């Protein structure tokens, strides 16, 4: 089962390697990891998707909490958060296929961000399922390259992880 963790860390060099290293040496399976700075420039958020049972996710949470630059770890409750991913997909495409691909893009709310005589590049933001659907539909045309950001997640409603940890 997949679990999504929202992790606040101090925005310092080397933190990513500490987190990633912890996963590899303890044998936890990372599905995706996305990092970016929060509204506080000193704090970054990592959204980590982990595959494993309840025991694994409990250990991941506890071991992450042991890392000194980790400020807070929150295992997001299923159904109580919004998750989104961003992808850029480059497809092999002759001019006469442009219309077909543009139709597919429109169906899935993707946009065409680059055109060349031999390729089209699409951009999509959405759930993992929607991204997979688009990639599946584009596959027959020949996918040259896919770049995915990994999942980002935010809790629904007013609650936040950061709020409770705002610097005093």
């Amino acid at each position, binding site marked *: 089962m997949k679990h999504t963790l929202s992790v606040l*860390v101090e925005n310092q060099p080397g933190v990513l390697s500490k987190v990633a*290293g912890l996963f590899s040496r303890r044998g936890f399976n990372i599905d995706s990891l996305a990092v970016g700075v929060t509204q506080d420039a000193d704090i970054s958020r990592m959204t980590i998707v982990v595959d494993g049972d309840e025991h694994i996710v409990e250990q991941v949470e506890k071991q992450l*909490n042991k890392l*000194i630059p980790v400020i807070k770890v929150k295992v997001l409750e299923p159904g109580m958060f919004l998750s989104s991913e961003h992808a850029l997909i480059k497809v092999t495409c002759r001019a006469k296929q442009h219309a077909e691909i543009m139709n597919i893009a429109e169906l899935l709310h993707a946009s065409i961000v680059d055109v060349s005589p031999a390729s089209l590049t699409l951009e999509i933001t959405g759930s993992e399922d929607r991204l997979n659907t688009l990639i599946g539909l584009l596959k027959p045309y020949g996918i040259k390259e896919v770049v995915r950001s990994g999942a980002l997640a935010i809790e629904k409603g007013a609650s936040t992880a950061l709020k409770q940890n705002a610097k005093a």
Partner: protein
Amino acid sequence: MISGAEIMVKCLEIEGVKTVFGYPGAAICPFYDFLCRSKIEHVLVREEQNAAHEASGYARAAGVPGVCVATSGPGATNLITGIATAYMDSVPLIAITGQVNQWLLGRDVFQEADITGACESFTKHSYLVKNAADLPRIFKEAFHIASTGRPGPVLIDVPTDVQKQMVASFSYPQKAQIPGYKPRTQGHAIQIRKAAEAISKAKRPLLCCGGGVVLAGARTEMIEFAEKTGIPIVSTMMGLGVVPMDSPVYLGMIGMHGHENANRAMHDADLILLCGARVGDRAVSDPQQVSDTTKIVHIDIDPAEIGKNMDVDIPIVGDIRLVLRALAAETDYTAPAEWIEHVKAEKAAFVPKGSPRDDYVEPRSFMRVLSRMMAKNAIFCADVGQNQIWAAKNFNVKEGRFLTSGGLGTMGYALPAAIGAKLAKPHRQVVCVCGDGSFQMSMCELATLKQTGADVKIILMVNERLGMVWELQTKLYDGRHTATTLTGSPDFVKLAEAYGIPATEVSSNAQAELAAKRMLESDGPFLLVCRVDPDEPTL
């Protein structure tokens, strides 16, 4: 103006550091240049790994962080085993390493090693210092992190240019402010109540005491709790010394090398209170088997230890000392007499193995005799291998300490750790036991011993083989003994004498007893070589 190197020394002084163990090199020279102007004593080891072990022995004996220093590259990488050893046994350690100049970092220049990266998985935290102005904050944080919560090693890697960098002024922070680091010491009241309730229903309760009890200084609380409730105690190897072997509440050491009656008590118990024990595989080989039938209360300051290896019914995060006090206040329980009689009878029926002999020193009976001869508060260091198990099962730690590398199982630990312990506690008797395998991993420290004049007595059990591995090969590898015979070892008596350290060799228990008595009465370091039957089993 003040240099980074001077700041480093000042930080150590403010932290109350009296002794550091190290080995200089070009990349740490600016620091050494100021260290020699300080009152801090520097112990020159003969190889960096021993600096970490000596600092570790010092830390464990003194109860404050030990400090070791090395230069960049090979100096730093030589520290690794000592740092990992300290990590596994939760020893507060500050490792300071020199690093190449910042502008050369990442270019694989002479004596460059990414030591913070290399130590990532066995330091509690690490720093690569980029600016001398950050040094006071970093040292403050490092000492705080190393010595609070679950103690552990912290590495501070300082490039040479940062040591030379001049900053306007020096001020040391009053407090370390780390947003993500707030170890919980008080156990949760509701959890403590739940544990008290579970105890009140238990018919066969057992206390299991681990290294965390020693680290928390919770010896008195542990014994008082056991005496108040009548709950018997078993210990892990790291928990040895909390309760004397002859105490009526103590049953013995658990684990694959433990006492049979203690293991049986673990098996028979219907409630186990794990206190500062991480349920390592050598202590409990199949945790699931225990947890299926037994209620488990696990007390540990490190939440990640709870539930890691064993399913736990009642977790309590906190300092063992405080939790045991709170638990004692919550309970009026008295353990059923039937259970007490049962475990006492099993302990009484346990016959210690080994009896004196004339052709060799019988190590188990010798350990028992030795512990009777030694001071009550002596510090005893055991190395790793057969000597460690002979000592762990037979040496009665009364009011002193038993130091060994229980987690990582690092051969060569005992001699340097004993030197560190002696320098921390100069008025306490310090004795170490090694095998001829483990001793040869750190025997260069005889020079450090001589140079410091530390009064450390060394008992060397010589059986000319790597006894434990030999046994393993006998049992599991059809008796194919590969690379476990120690031919080419020196004459250890002559070796010690070459260092100016008196030594003697004995080959019977009677001789050993007399020699040990003379050794303990002598001034200064001494090496006692005991000839042990090569086929002497571990258990």
